């Protein structure tokens, strides 16, 4: 029972984790992309269209990543290259994505709203581990994006702490002028980071439409992009913290489904609220924002 919970939590937390890891990277480079929700949504839509056309999930995954990159590049062109306000551009991206995917969805799949059945990502049983008693079949029989997301946590932590490029990303976020004084191209580097994060947000969308939901409906992300934003703050800009936050959200969601399935009338909305409330509480603590990148959200202009 508990193991199943964890497994469900893992699956439900995966889209959050993927998106939040990308956002973590972007924020560590000094950019606040609140267009994450929209980027995920476009990814989910692209995954649905491509997977449905191809009849297999893989093209969907690739299309989602590509679409995520495209949206991130649009964000970056306005907010990083042209220096438009990051918050406004992010809000615009969210509206654009919600309206655009919604309208196109109707055009492509008809207005009747017949539920779209998509080829889903196959479960992959990890050798040895999946044979473990009790835990094995549940925890180690997930789709590929779950493993990818989990693998990315240590990779991201290692990248930021122990590699030269990781240092560059952190310098961009904490002291872009120092980076510039060393001859590093601040805006170009931020665009690259955005593109990587865009791909991850796209994959997060694919994880939604090709696994968690197995379908696409208008606004399928339902605020998960914003949860991912909250998780980055909650996790104090650390990949491990982000993992904890994502799992927390996943388990809260799993509980909610559990409550809805059984007849117990517990207010599941309070569980859905949990990641937001916990993040707000974390911010209320002294030094709640101590780990935020110092130049977060400020557009960079040379003198």
């Amino acid at each position, binding site marked *: 029972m508990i193991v199943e919970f964890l497994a469900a939590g893992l699956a439900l937390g995966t889209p959050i984790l993927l998106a939040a890891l990308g956002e973590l990277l972007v924020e560590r480079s000094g950019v606040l992309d609140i267009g994450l929700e929209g980027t995920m949504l476009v990814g989910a839509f692209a995954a649905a269209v491509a997977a449905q056309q191809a009849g297999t999930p893989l093209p969907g995954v690739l299309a989602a990543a590509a679409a995520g990159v495209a949206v991130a590049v649009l964000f970056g062109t306005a907010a990083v290259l042209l220096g438009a306000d990051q918050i406004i551009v992010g809000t615009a991206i969210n509206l654009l994505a919600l309206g655009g995917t919604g309208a196109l969805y109707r055009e492509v799949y008809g207005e009747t709203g017949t539920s779209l059945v998509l080829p889903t990502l196959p479960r992959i049983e990890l050798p040895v581990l999946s044979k473990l008693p009790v835990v094995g079949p549940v925890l180690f029989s997930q789709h590929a994006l779950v493993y990818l997301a989990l693998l990315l946590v240590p990779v991201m932590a290692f990248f930021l702490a122990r590699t030269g490029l990781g240092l*560059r990303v952190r310098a961009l976020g*904490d002291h872009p002028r120092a980076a510039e004084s060393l001859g590093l191209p601040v805006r170009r580097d931020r665009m690259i980071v955005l593109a990587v994060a865009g791909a991850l947000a796209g994959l997060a969308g694919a994880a939604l439409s090709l696994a968690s939901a197995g379908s696409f409906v208008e606004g399928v992300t339902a605020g998960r992009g914003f949860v991912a934003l909250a998780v980055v703050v909650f996790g104090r800009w650390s990949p491990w913290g982000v993992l904890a936050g994502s799992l927390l959200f996943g388990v809260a969601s799993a509980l909610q489904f559990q409550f809805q399935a059984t007849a117990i009338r517990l207010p599941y909305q309070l569980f859905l609220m949990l990641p937001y409330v916990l993040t707000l509480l974390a911010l209320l603590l002294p030094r709640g924002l101590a780990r935020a990148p110092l130049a977060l959200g400020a557009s960079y202009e040379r003198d």
Partner: protein
Amino acid sequence: MSDVRETAARADESGRPVLEMRGVRKRFGAVVALDGVDFTARAGEIHALLGENGAGKSTLMQVASGLYSADAGEVRLGGRDARWGSAVEARAAGIAMVHQHFMLVPTLTVAENLALALGRRGWLDPARLAEETRAFADAFRISIADPGRRVEELSVGDRQRVEILKALVGDRLAPDGRPHPPALLVLDEPTAVLVPDEVDVLFELLEGLAARGTAVVIVTHKLAEVLRIADRVTILRAGRVIASGPAGEHDERSLAAAMVGTNRDRLPVAGSTTAGDGVAATGARGATGATAAGAANPPALRVDAVSARDARGAVVLDDVSFEVRPGELLVVAGVEGNGQGELVSVLAGIGRDRLRDLRGCVEIDGRPVARASDARGAGLAVVPADRGREGLVHELSLWENLLLAEPLLDRAAPRGWIDRDRAMKAAAGRIAEFGVQPADPLRAAGALSGGNQQRLVLARELGGEVPRVVVAANPSRGLDLAATASVRARLRALAGAGAAVVVFSSDLDEVEELAGTVAVLFRGRLLRASARRPARDEIGRLMAGLGVAA
């Protein structure tokens, strides 16, 4: 280590010109920053570049290090023509620069900052990075803190040594991976942020570098330091070289005279007024001394034993006391960064918001000033040191900015409603009077040039009825000659009309022209001169920290 061999090899070349600049000109808009400057830095020497604020020192070094390009003139490095496309190119060619404001990433460790500067890629092992950092530090004989500590945890002196190490290592690793000292190391005001012990450590370090053949240039305005460490000195004033030669040919008096532009014909023999070293006890009370106004007149502004620390815990104001009577003009001379900004904050009632351990008291007409509204309510006008940040709201229009003081706003809107037409008309008049360009009251203040922003602040603070107390920091900064003269005349006139006026200035011409009682702020202490109106070079010496026990 290998540096011994290197030292021997390079010491032979000592005296060879490394950087040669001939006839360098640079202008910013209408301002000529450099007016045909010649400058030579030789291998193995420590060369002090001396001058007042705005004399062109930093500009000259920024031309040398590729941040600016010269409008005219020649820059040669190691005998070859040097035209840098960027600061990075200059650095690759062997010019290392340590800026006054450190370019270190505070959240990275010492070793990581170095790795970043070296453009290290791939996997970074903290232990190996630390080892490498220590090896570099040893090679340059720089003692640095634990390479694994984050820069934000270090003292200012430690940070500066990391910055110097970063500049030295640069990307100038020889093919064998050994550090290769730069041909030229420039340090901009390196001692400004250091405590005396740290200055000693820095100077030892610089002497060591020079001994191994690097040409070291320090940009400074501190005379004592120049005489202590420099082999050669070049003095700039208003973009021209006033003197250049071996430091041994100078003493403090001649340096001070050259730096502040004492007119020897006009002054009596420079020694006579200052020979007895007219520096009074530090932290002197009642710096205004005996005034013509007489004691019968109670002071409008009284400052009693004000001390404070900044956010980092350094003492920025140290037992400052003075009084200013109505009709009196006190000029507080001093090089910037000696507590002026902080003292202005305290006088304006906002000290508590930015300083720690604030003690002592400020009174206007006998009533204590604890908050800005107290000060404003008591009739204070203030021209802050950082007009762009403290004096104006950039997004608001000119006419709105002209109301940014509690009593002015209350007067313009007695019942809460601003009489727009009247405010606009008043603004237009004020803008014209102070020559704010463009003279469009609806324009955003942020769109004005620096000089015009200064005019706007002056127009608000000095343009209305006579305030009870005026506090002005560098009132003529950014203004042209005519406007400068008129602002100074206005400050004198306000005093004449009965205001108690305090002007902070780093410009000796201004100190002289304001013709008020003079005191000097040095390292947070208020120093009294030998006379109410001391000679120019005495002020210069006090400003430079001469005769003060460090």
